[in-house]
Every structure is written in C-alpha cells, then in structure tokens.
C-alpha cells in the first residue's frame, strides 16, 4: 500500500508498475507464464523428437499428443483462478472484457478463414492455432484496455 503512494511522484519503471499489481495478478503472472513456458518447451521437445525419428504408437502416441494441450489447459485454469482470486473488481472487469475480445477475435478469424478455405486455395488453418490466436487477441485487448484506463 505504501509503495503505491511513493510511486506516484516519479516516473514509473517496470519494477514500480510491478509493485502496484495486486497479489492475485502476481500469482496469475507466475502461473500463466509457467504454463506457457511449459507449452513452448513441450512443443519444441516433441517437434525435435519427431524430426529425429520418435513416432510413438497407441496409448503413448495419445499421451504425447495431449501433453502440450495440458499446458494450455493449465494456462486457461490460471485465468479462471485469477478471476476468482482478484479482489479489485475493476481489474476483474478489464480482464473479463479482454477475454471477450479474445473469444470474439478467434471466432471471427476461424469463421472467415473457414469460408476462405471453402471458396479459395488458402492454406488450412490447424485447430492447434486456436489458443495462440485467442491469446494474441486477448493480449492486444488487455493492453488497449489498460492503456485506456491508465
């Protein structure tokens, strides 16, 4: 609380901005980044193994295929936990709005892309890109909303 008062008198650096974040947001930041880091690491490891002749079959193939998706589920769960833990209702409101923009953005993209696939020779949109694009739209919306309400 006291940190926030002191920070108002001088230009804000990243560390000062960080000190103003709510405890719930800090927890979300670490959980979310942990999940996304796991997703990236798992994706790269599996791609590397696949390129080097690792082609499991049966149950193992299913487990290996689902591994990166579990990291995405963890990232989504971290967002849900943030919403339930955040006590600052306005911050919660901004986060929900950014999620809605993310959902809207990915629905528009996949709908338009789907029709383009039918009527043109555009490349196939793999569903594994759904979450990364949702995240991109949500992140842009989150940034704009925070900038507008700075």
């Amino acid at each position, binding site marked *: 609380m006291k940190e926030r008062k002191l920070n108002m008198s001088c230009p804000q650096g990243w560390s000062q901005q960080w000190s103003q974040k709510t405890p719930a947001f800090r927890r979300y930041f670490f959980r979310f980044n942990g999940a996304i880091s796991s997703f990236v690491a798992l994706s790269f490891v599996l791609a590397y193994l696949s390129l080097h002749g690792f082609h499991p079959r049966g149950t193992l193939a299913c487990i290996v295929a689902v591994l990166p998706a579990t990291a995405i589920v963890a990232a989504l769960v971290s967002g849900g936990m943030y919403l339930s833990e955040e006590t*600052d*209702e306005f*911050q919660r409101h901004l986060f929900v709005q950014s999620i809605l923009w993310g959902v809207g953005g990915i629905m528009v993209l996949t709908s338009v892309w789907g029709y383009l696939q039918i009527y043109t020779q555009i490349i196939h949109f793999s569903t594994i890109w759904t979450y990364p694009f949702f995240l991109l739209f949500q992140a842009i919306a989150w940034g704009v909303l925070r900038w507008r309400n700075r």
Partner: protein
Amino acid sequence: MKNRLRVLRAEREWSQADLADRLEVSRQSVNAIETGKYDPSLPLAFRIARLFESSIEAIFSDTD
C-alpha cells in the same frame, strides 16, 4: 452514472492513490469510477460511502 467522488476526494486533499489505498482497490479503479467509465458494485459503493461518512445516494446519482 454521475458521482461526487472527485469533489469529496479533493476536499480531503487525497490523491487518487490515497483513496485507492483506503478503499483497497487500484488507482485505475478510482480513476475509472471518478470519470464515470465504471460503475462500482454495491459492496464497493457501500465502502466508498462509509469512507466519506455519507450515503450512497449523496455520492452517486443516476440523474444530472
């Protein structure tokens, strides 16, 4: 919805950050409420009213 938050805060010579600390919300929340971009929930409106020792109706108004 209009409110007198900025006036009440100015009377006490509090910054937005000071008020945010007292309400245990972010400074952005105070700014959004003051500028009418965001209407607080009933529990937060009660906290604001209690802090300024006033009624909710005396601070918030749905008419000009």
